[in-house]
């Protein structure tokens, strides 16, 4: 199982309510995934600043802050439960190499506008812990996990992000992920877990870095990724969904003039404003649906 949800705002009307809307969706999808939950939220970017979403695990925030200030010149460092959003104008490559050397932390995502929070536990508790309801933004993606392919850990939780401002959530399982992982490692994509979805995220990063757009990337994924999947993926200004050709893994799209919402089941969207007059449809198998770019 697993539950996947996402919202892409087409107008500014609901920007302040984005966290609240996504929170209701994630809590509802507990029935599909009680093991862990997570979300990626895209906010307006600040010029020249890069944000790093970090899970500090068992470290004490004050100590981590003291330690990191010696290594990285940052603009801000904000604590949200066991996660930290670090903003810096320094060269991202340099910052990433420093962060990747700190064994005690997990870098869960980075980019100009993305912030990612994910943790083990019931979705209801996870969204409460990170105060998701208070978030605003332009688009967001979330996941509730019923673990199958790898252990119940922070690193095994979704969304996965393997490139700047990219993220992916997945309902299903991939059968050729080991081969693909070996191939992508040769192409300098780094992996942190044994999870199949992380490989799909790496595949997408690799294609996007080769100047393909999100739609083209997902179209090639249809022939290269073997297994069952419904994916929702986000980039700084884009949002897309694709289901494999067999389409056993569900998805429903609700589109109004103000937003596009996607969820594994309609009940996760029943609370959204104006959903009853939305255009509600099921994405067809093997077809990429995308908004933005």
């Amino acid at each position, binding site marked *: 199982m697993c539950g996947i949800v996402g919202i892409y705002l087409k107008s500014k009307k609901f920007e302040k309510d984005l966290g609240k809307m996504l929170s209701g969706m994630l809590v509802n999808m507990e029935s599909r995934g009680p093991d862990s939950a997570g979300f990626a939220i895209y906010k307006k970017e600040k010029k020249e600043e890069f944000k790093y979403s970090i899970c500090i695990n068992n470290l004490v925030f004050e100590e981590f802050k003291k330690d990191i200030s010696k290594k990285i010149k940052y603009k801000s460092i904000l604590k949200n439960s066991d996660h930290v959003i670090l903003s810096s104008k320094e060269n991202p490559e340099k910052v990433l190499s420093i962060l990747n050397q700190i064994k005690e932390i997990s870098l869960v995502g980075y980019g100009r506008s993305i912030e990612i929070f994910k943790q083990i536990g019931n979705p209801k508790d996870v969204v409460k812990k990170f105060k998701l309801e208070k978030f605003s933004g332009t688009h967001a993606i979330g996941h509730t996990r019923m673990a199958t392919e790898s252990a119940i850990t922070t690193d095994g939780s979704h969304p996965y992000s393997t490139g700047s401002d990219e993220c992916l959530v997945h309902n299903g399982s991939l059968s050729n992920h080991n081969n693909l992982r070996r191939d992508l490692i040769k192409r300098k994509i780094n992996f942190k877990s044994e999870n199949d979805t992380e490989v799909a995220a790496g595949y997408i990063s690799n294609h996007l870095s080769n100047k393909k757009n999100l739609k083209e990337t997902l179209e090639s994924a249809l022939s290269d990724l073997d297994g069952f999947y419904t994916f929702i993926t986000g980039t700084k200004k884009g949002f897309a969904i694709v289901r494999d050709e067999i389409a056993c893994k569900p998805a*429903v799209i609700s589109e109004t003039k103000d937003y596009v919402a996607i969820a594994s089941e309609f*009940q996760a969207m*029943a609370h959204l404003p104006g959903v009853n007059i939305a255009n*509600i449809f099921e994405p067809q*198998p093997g077809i990429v649906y995308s908004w933005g770019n």
Partner: protein
Amino acid sequence: MKLDLKKLKLRKVNETLQSIDPKKNNKNYTILNPEGNHAICVGLTDDIDITVKGHVGYYCGGMNQNANITVEGNVGTGVAENMMSGKIHVKGNASQSAGATAHGGFLIIDGDASSRCGISMKGIDIVVKGSVGHMSAFMAQSGNLIVCGNAGEALGDSLYETDIYIKGKVKSLGADCIEKKMDNKHLKKLENLLKKAKLEKLKTKDFKRYGSARKLYNFKIDNVSSY
């Protein structure tokens, strides 16, 4: 009688509908605020009319006997699964596996039905006013599937004795499914079913009939070593 799922638990609503006293109870029910809940109106056995005001989740009207259910919205996976008799009318679209394994009754879908519509159907009559997705009528055994729009890939794969009537295009036929001649008996049957779905305006001659080539499921002495 109105049953509001915002005020009542689903189990309470289903229990009410499952234990009708024909002498005392009302025969007309309206379900409000379904909000995508699963298993609404499952296991009903009485001749009652129910209107569901909104979108529902999985297995709506599953195992239905006798009840007449109208859903004013979309339905999730497996609407009317294992229905025995009665009628279910979906005014929106249906997700996958609509009418799965259903033995009898009548299912009308005003919109589209996605993949595996009528999978393993065992006697139900299904009319889809829109199109159906891939693998529809997979291993379908008996009954009729009528589609006024198009059918996706592998229609009627591994088919037994269900009759399939399609007005639009068929993307591809599944194993052992072939186009068959439409004789008077079939035209008459189709006409009756279209009438039942209030689609009298459609012309039966615009439909094509598909059925089993009967090569896959019949015992053949040549294949004995495979068993």
